[in-house]
């Protein structure tokens, strides 16, 4: 085994994967290049003065606190939730598996509106914390359910035999083995919090994104906005590095079988706590916003006809599905490289896709406007540019999804095929691609729902005259017309829930 692994590591990276992967990774950094350019617009000393201010430090602290709190809460919730639905005999676990992932379908701005229109004193840190935890914990929960389902039961059995079989111990034992998955999910949550605009703006929490938005929108001060966005990139970079460290050599603890058989662990009296937790989380993150939306819909007057809602829905579905296909195609070479040929280069490729993802949507949108109008004039404010922006924004979601399923294929399989004379690309074509197919569907679903929820990039780059559910919703909420927003909010939740269910229920 160890000798074959060495062969695999030493073999040269196949060019047909490397070339598109490098192109994609470099292209996804275009918004960063724009930022650097604008940030240095007034010279390096101006840049330094802007950064070296008390208020910038305050921002770092405020955003950092929020990101840390939401990430910690997401992990603390996801471990018992994912463990109980995957490894235990929890009643209704098959339904819970999907239901607990559905809060992904709730856009942060929608959840925030729902809460603040009900109780305005939630504004501030705790409101932002509540909403962001409720909508982003599935980023840890989802990959963790997948990891738990692959977990070998041997360790749990050994622990039971040695009398260390309390529910909590077994759960923590399983969680420790999935450290890498938890780290990867935490990274997504932390980046989501740092780049989220809707929740912090609605909850009036002075985080980076709100301040950056203000500098662009009311200040016409692109330099300051770019400088702050660059600071945000640095924080994101630190997080990405931290994740690599935390991930460690997690992959080795996975079973080599694609799906491990295991007997569910009996929860007995503890079951009630797990049921209560699942009910509480669902109530806060899903039932409450849906209930608020239904209240809005109930007071709905004849603002828009059915046709308006349908055409907005068609706009959302069309762009997000095309974006999902494009993103998966672009992500595939990167994901295969990092999963099958783990070197510094492939890791760097993989990590670099997170940079743009960590930028606030408004920053990515403005940079795509700048680039688009100058070098892609024929498709500026046309569908192709919007799709490209989605690809740059959501690339790591797709890479992560594909990578997770590509890592399940034992490396030995590649080595056997290679030793029988297959070229690296033949291995990819005949062995890797068929085996990652389910991962592709999940990755596409993840990108679809992210694109359907996305607001700033859609707003700035959508073809003139077309509307999506998100832009319609925004139109009504800016004039605080909750009744008019109702149908669009409902449609977003329902139609984003579909890809969410696909992403969850694929097993």
């Amino acid at each position, binding site marked *: 085994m160890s000798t074959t692994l060495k062969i695999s590591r030493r073999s040269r990276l196949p060019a047909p994967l490397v070339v598109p992967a490098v192109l994609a990774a470099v292209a996804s950094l275009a918004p960063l290049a724009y930022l650097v350019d604008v940030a240095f617009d007034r010279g390096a000393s101006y840049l330094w003065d802007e950064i070296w201010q008390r208020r910038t430090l305050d921002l770092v602290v405020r955003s950092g606190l929020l990101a840390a709190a939401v990430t910690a809460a997401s992990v603390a919730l996801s471990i018992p939730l994912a463990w109980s639905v995957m490894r235990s005999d929890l009643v209704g676990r098959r339904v819970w598996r999907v239901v607990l992932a559905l809060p992904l379908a709730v856009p942060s701005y929608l959840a925030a509106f729902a809460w603040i229109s009900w109780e305005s004193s939630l504004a501030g840190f705790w409101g932002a914390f509540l909403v962001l935890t409720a909508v982003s914990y599935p980023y840890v929960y989802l990959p963790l359910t997948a990891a738990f389902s692959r977990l070998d039961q041997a360790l749990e059995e050994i622990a039971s035999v040695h009398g260390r079989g309390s529910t909590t111990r077994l759960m923590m034992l399983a969680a420790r083995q999935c450290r890498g998955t938890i780290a990867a999910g935490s990274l997504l949550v932390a980046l989501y919090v740092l780049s989220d605009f809707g929740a912090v703006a*609605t909850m009036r929490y002075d985080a980076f994104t709100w301040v950056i938005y203000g500098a662009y*929108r*009311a200040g*016409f001060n692109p330099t300051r906005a770019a400088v702050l966005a660059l600071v945000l990139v640095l924080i994101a970079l630190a997080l990405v590095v931290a994740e690599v460290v935390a991930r460690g050599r997690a992959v080795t603890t996975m079973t080599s079988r694609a799906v491990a058989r295991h007997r569910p662990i009996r929860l007995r009296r503890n079951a009630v706590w797990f049921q209560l937790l699942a009910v509480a989380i669902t109530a806060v993150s899903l039932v409450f916003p849906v209930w608020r939306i239904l209240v809005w819909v109930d007071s709905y007057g004849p603002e828009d006809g059915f046709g308006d809602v349908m055409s907005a829905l068609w706009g959302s579905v069309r762009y997000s599905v095309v974006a999902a296909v494009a993103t998966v195609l672009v992500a595939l070479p990167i994901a295969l490289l990092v999963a099958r040929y783990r070197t510094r280069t492939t890791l760097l490729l993989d990590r670099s896709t997170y940079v743009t993802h960590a930028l606030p949507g408004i920053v990515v949108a403005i940079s795509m*406007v700048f680039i688009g*109008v100058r070098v892609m*004039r024929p498709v500026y404010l046309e569908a192709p540019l919007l799709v490209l922006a989605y690809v740059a924004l959501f690339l790591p979601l797709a890479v992560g999804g594909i990578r997770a399923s590509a890592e399940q294929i034992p490396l030995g399989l590649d080595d056997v095929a290679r030793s029988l004379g297959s070229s690296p690309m033949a291995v990819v074509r005949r062995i890797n691609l068929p085996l990652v197919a389910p991962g592709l569907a999940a990755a596409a679903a993840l990108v679809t729902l992210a694109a359907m929820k996305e607001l700033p990039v859609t707003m700035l780059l959508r073809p003139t005259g077309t509307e999506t559910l998100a832009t319609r919703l925004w139109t009504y909420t800016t004039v605080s017309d909750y009744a008019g927003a109702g149908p669009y909010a409902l449609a977003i939740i329902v139609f984003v829930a579909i890809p969410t269910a696909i992403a969850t229920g694929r097993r």
Partner: protein
Amino acid sequence: MSTPRRFLNVSVSFLVAGLFPIALVACGGDDGESNDTSSEIADSADPCEGATGTITVYSGRSEKLVADLYTSFSTDTGIGVEVRYGDSGELAGQILTEGSASPADVFFSQDAGALGAVSQVGLFATLPTSILDRVPSEFSSPIGHWVGTSGRVRVIVYNPTLVPAPPASIDELLDSSWKGKIGFAPTNASWQSFVTALRVIRGEDAAREWLQGFADNDPVAYEKNGAVRDAVNAGEVSLGLVNHYYLFEKIAAEGADAVVAKNQYLPGDIGGLVNVAGAGVLAESGNRRAAQCLVSYFVSDTGQQYFVDESFEYPLVGGVAPVDGQPAFDELDPPAIDLSDLSSIAATQELLADVGLLTL
């Protein structure tokens, strides 16, 4: 300029080229030679004469508010209108980022500040006098880059059950009896326009003094004016600094019974600033004639009546009357100010940040 700067430009070009192989052609600087031959048409009597085709409008005014107006314009003139709705500041940002390559023909903005920002970088064409003359000159760009289309007045919205006698001047708001009871929207463009007017009229030091006093009274920050109005109506705060029409919007949406809040107008006080929505034609517009036709439609009697009926704002053209329940326009007695000075928002934001009313 310096070497690092050139390096960055090169690296941007490199990355862009990596992204879009067809690129680099349009990368050269397009320094404005706006010797537009169509500028001759500028002063013909009827701005719509011979106007045809389709134009693109960047509309900072919401679809709900103005979509019907664009439709009736198309019906009346046969000119097609493609509309991009968005936030005025964001659209101004988009135009500034697009530069002379902007696909916009007309920019219709919610406030004068965003128009001023576009005007300042020279992206607007000069409007014909037949359009500019419709509106009192103090409500348009002094260099004819944009024309005011409707007016909104800053007011104090108050909850009469909590505040029997509302203040008649913003200076009364500094009284400690209002501590923690005033709502405002720190990032809202109209609030920042008011603070800008305060700076311009009273000077930096006096403005800072007022703002410091205001900040010491712990005002409650909301995301936007609508939220301030709702908070006042719900009794969460006693009064708020907003524009006059938010109250009328709520009454129209929820009925007079659902609304207890009232407007206190501030004639003769700096707090009673009149700001405008306005529109301008982009200098690089490919169809300037049709673009001017649309702007002239905004200041026609039809357009003015539309704004009164739909947005509850003040008409700027004589002969069109405001909504019932609003004081007459000439009773408002707003502070005298050149509205194009309201574009110095950056300085306003610095000041607001200094006194702790805004996070920059």
